C-alpha cells in the first residue's frame, strides 16, 4: 500500500517535470511566433510518418541505447564519464584503422567486420581506461580528464581524416573514402537500419541489466557508488571496481563507434560520435540510472532527433528546438525530483 503510494507520487512528479518541459518549449515556440501544436505534430509525423522514418529513428536509437548502457556502469560507480564522446570516437578510429588493414586482403569480409568491431570496442575501452587511470592514479577528476581526452580524440580524428587517411588527392570534411559495400553491416532492403546493430543494442541492454541488477559485481559497484569509504571498509577493492566500470563503459562506447562506422556512415567522419555520448548522459539522468526505462526513453530521444528534421523544412524553425526539449526535460525532471525530496520526504 505504502509502496504503491510512493510510486504514484514519484510518477506524478515526473509527469509534472514533463509538463513543465513541454510548457517551456511551448513558450519558446510562442515567442518565435510558431504554432506549438503544429510543431509537435510535425515532430511526431517526422518520426513515425512512414517506414523509412521509423527506420531512421532506430538508426539513432541503437547508438543512444548502447552508450547509455555503458554510462549506467560508470554512473552506478558514482562516476561522471564525460569522456564518453571521445571513447566513441576512438572506437570508430580503431574500427576504421583495422578495417583499412584488411581492405586488400582475401580474408572473408564477415571476419573483417567482426575483427574491426572488436578493435573498436578495445579502442573505446582503452580510452576509457585512460580516464580511469587519470582518476585513480593521477587524482584528476574524471570530468576534467574526460573533457581533455575528448579534445584529443577529436583532434586525432580530424588529423587522420585530413592527413594519413585522407582520400587520394583531396581532404574532405565528408570523411575518409567509403568502404566497399561488402564491408558494411548488412541492412534491410532500402533502409539504413541494420538488424545486426539492433541485435547488439538489445543484447547490450540485457547484459548491462543483469550485470547491474543480478550480480555481486553490480552490487559492489553500487556500494562503491554510494560511498567509497564505507565500501572500502566493507572490503570492496574500490579503485579496481571504478576502473572496471570505466572499461565496461568504454567497451559499449567503442561498440557504438564501431557501429557508426560499419553500419551507418561506412567511413570515418569528423563528427562520428554525433553527440550521442552527451545525449546518453541526459538519458541516464532522466531514467534515474534505472536500466529498465532505458529502451523507451532512448527511443523517445531518437524520435525527437529524427522528427525535428521536419521543423526547418516545413516551418523554418531550427531543429535544435528538439535539443531544447530534451535538455529542458532532463532539467525539469531533476528539479521536480528535488522538490519532491524537499516536500514529500526522501522516500
Amino acid at each position, binding site marked *: 500500500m505504502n509502496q504503491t503510494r510512493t510510486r504514484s507520487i514519484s510518477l*506524478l512528479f515526473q509527469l509534472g517535470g514533463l509538463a513543465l518541459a513541454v510548457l517551456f518549449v511551448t513558450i519558446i515556440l510562442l515567442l518565435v511566433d510558431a504554432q506549438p*501544436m503544429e510543431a509537435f505534430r510535425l515532430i511526431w509525423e517526422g518520426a513515425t510518418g512512414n517506414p523509412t522514418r521509423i527506420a531512421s529513428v532506430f538508426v539513432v536509437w541503437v547508438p543512444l541505447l548502447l552508450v547509455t548502457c555503458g554510462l549506467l556502469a560508470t554512473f552506478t560507480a558514482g562516476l561522471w564519464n564525460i569522456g564518453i564522446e571521445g571513447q566513441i570516437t576512438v572506437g570508430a578510429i580503431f574500427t576504421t584503422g583495422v578495417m583499412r588493414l584488411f581492405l586488400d586482403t582475401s580474408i572473408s569480409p564477415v571476419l573483417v567486420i567482426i575483427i574491426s568491431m572488436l578493435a573498436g570496442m578495445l579502442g573505446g575501452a582503452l580510452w576509457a581506461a585512460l580516464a580511469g587511470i587519470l582518476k585513480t592514479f593521477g587524482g584528476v577528476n574524471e570530468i576534467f580528464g574526460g573533457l581533455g581526452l575528448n579534445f584529443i580524440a577529436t583532434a586525432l580524428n580530424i588529423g587522420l581524416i585530413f592527413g594519413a587517411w585522407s582520400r587520394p*588527392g583531396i581532404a574532405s570534411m565528408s570523411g575518409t573514402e567509403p568502404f566497399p559495400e561488402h564491408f558494411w553491416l548488412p541492412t534491410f532492403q532500402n533502409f*539504413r537500419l541494420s538488424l545486426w546493430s539492433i541485435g547488439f543494442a538489445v543484447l547490450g541492454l540485457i547484459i548491462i541489466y543483469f550485470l547491474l541488477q543480478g550480480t555481486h559485481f553490480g552490487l559492489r559497484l553500487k556500494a562503491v557508488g554510494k560511498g567509497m569509504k564505507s565500501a572500502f571498509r566493507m572490503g570492496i577493492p574500490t579503485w579496481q571496481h571504478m576502473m572496471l566500470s570505466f572499461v565496461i563503459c568504454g567497451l559499449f562506447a567503442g561498440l557504438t563507434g564501431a557501429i557508426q562506422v560499419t553500419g551507418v556512415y561506412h567511413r570515418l567522419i569528423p563528427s562520428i560520435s554525433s553527440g550521442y555520448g552527451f545525449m546518453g548522459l541526459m538519458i541516464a539522468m532522466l531514467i534515474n540510472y534505472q536500466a529498465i526505462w532505458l529502451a523507451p526513453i532512448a527511443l523517445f530521444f531518437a524520435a525527437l532527433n529524427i522528427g525535428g528534421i521536419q521543423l526547418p523544412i*516545413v516551418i523554418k524553425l531550427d531543429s535544435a528546438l528538439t535539443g531544447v526539449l530534451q535538455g529542458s526535460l532532463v532539467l525539469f525532471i531533476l528539479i521536480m525530483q528535488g522538490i519532491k525530496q524537499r516536500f514529500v520526504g526522501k522516500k
Partner: protein
Amino acid sequence: MKKKYAWTIFALLLVMVLVLSACKPTPAPSAPAEPAAPAEEPAAPAEPAAPAEEPAAPAEEPAAPAEEFVFGMLLVGPYNDKGWSQAHYEAGEFVVEKVPGTKMIYLDRVNTADRPGTTAAQLAEELVQQGAKLVVFNSDDMKDDAVEFTKNNPEIFVIHASGDTVWADGENYVPLANMANLMGEMEYGKMIAGCDAALHTQSGSIGYLGPLINEETRRLATSAYLGARYCWDNYLEKDPADLKFRVTWIGFWFNIPGFTEDPTQVANEFINSGVDVIISGIDTTEGLVEARKATGEGKQVFAIPYDFIGACEEAPDVCLGVPYFNWGPSYARYVSSAMQGTWKSAFEWMPPNWENINDLDNTPIGYFSGPAMSQDAKPLLEKFIAELAGGLNLWSGPLNYQDGSEFLAEGEVATDVEIWYLSQLLEGMEGRSE
C-alpha cells in the same frame, strides 16, 4: 496536506500548458492535425506523406494550385551566410520567380557537424517526402550522398553543384541519367580578384584564406595567384619577386569551432605579417570583417570575399570587389527541362557571359566591383577583364608546380582536365598543397 499541495501545482501546470497551446490563433483546437494554412504558404500539404503512395495528399487544402513543381535544396551552410549557400538560396528564389509553377523547399546547414546523426541522402529523401521532384546538393562534400541518392531515386532529378560525377572526361565518371553537375567557371572570377588584389596591395603581400585542400580549392587559389601575377607584372610593371602570395587553409568552407581553424584568427595572422589584401576562398566573410577592424585601427587592409554578390555589404569601405556565383539562370534551365521532360544529364563548367559578366539573367559567374576600388585601378581591372574576354589564357606555360617540377612547358596550354584536377599549387605560391 503535502500531497494536496503537489496536486494543486501539477493541475495548475497542466492547465497552463493546455491554455497556452490552445490560445495561440490556431484553427479549431478539435482538429489540430489540420494545417493552419498561413497565407504565405498556400501549398503546404496537410500530410507530409509520400506522394508516390498517396497521390492526393493535399486534400484538405483545395485552394492550392493543382500541379506545382517542387524542387528542394540542400545547403551546406546557413541560407543567409552571405556566401556560397546564400548564393544558392537566392538562385532558388530566382527560379521561383522566372519559372512559373515552381516552389522551393530547402534545408540548410546540411553537414554532419551541424546535423549530427544524419546523412545528406537521408535529408534529400525528406525533401522528396515533402514533394520535391528535383533536389540540389550544393556541396562537393555531399558527393557520396548525392551519388547514393541519385542511384536510389531514379525518378528524382538531381543537380550536384560543383561535382564531376557525370563528366565523361572526368576521373570519377559514373553515368547517372538523372544527375547533372553544374559549376561556374569561377577560375575567371578568381583571376579578376587576384588582379584586383595586386592592383591595390601596397606591401606586395596577398593572403588567400583557403577552405579545405582539394582539387577545386587548389585550382581556385591558383587562379587568384595567376591573375595577381599577371597584373603585377604587366600592368604595374613591378618586380615579380616582390609579389608574395600566401595560402592558409582553415580546414572547411566555414568555421566550425573545434573542427576547423578559426578564420578570424587566420585573417589576423595575415594582417600581422604584413598582408594588406585578403582574398577569401571560404564561404563566410571573416576576412572582410577583420580587414575592416584593422583599417579602423589605422592599417589600410582590403579584402575580397567570395561566392555571393551581396558579400561586400558586410564592410563596404574595405571591400575591393567580390567574385560571385549566379546559379539562378542555369538552375532555371534545368528545372524547366525537368518540368518539360527534356532533361539531359550533363556536366557543365560554365564560363562567364563575356558580353557582360554582371548580367544576372545570363551569366553563371560575375565580378562585382566594391566601393573600396580605387580610381587608378578601375581602368586597369576593366582592361584585364576585356583581355580575358578576348581570349587571354593564363593557364599557359611556362608554369611550374610548387615543388619545382614542370606543369606546362613554354607554349603549352592546360586542358580542362588538368585544371579541374590540379594536383599542386604553383611555384611562387606559399602554403600547403596537400
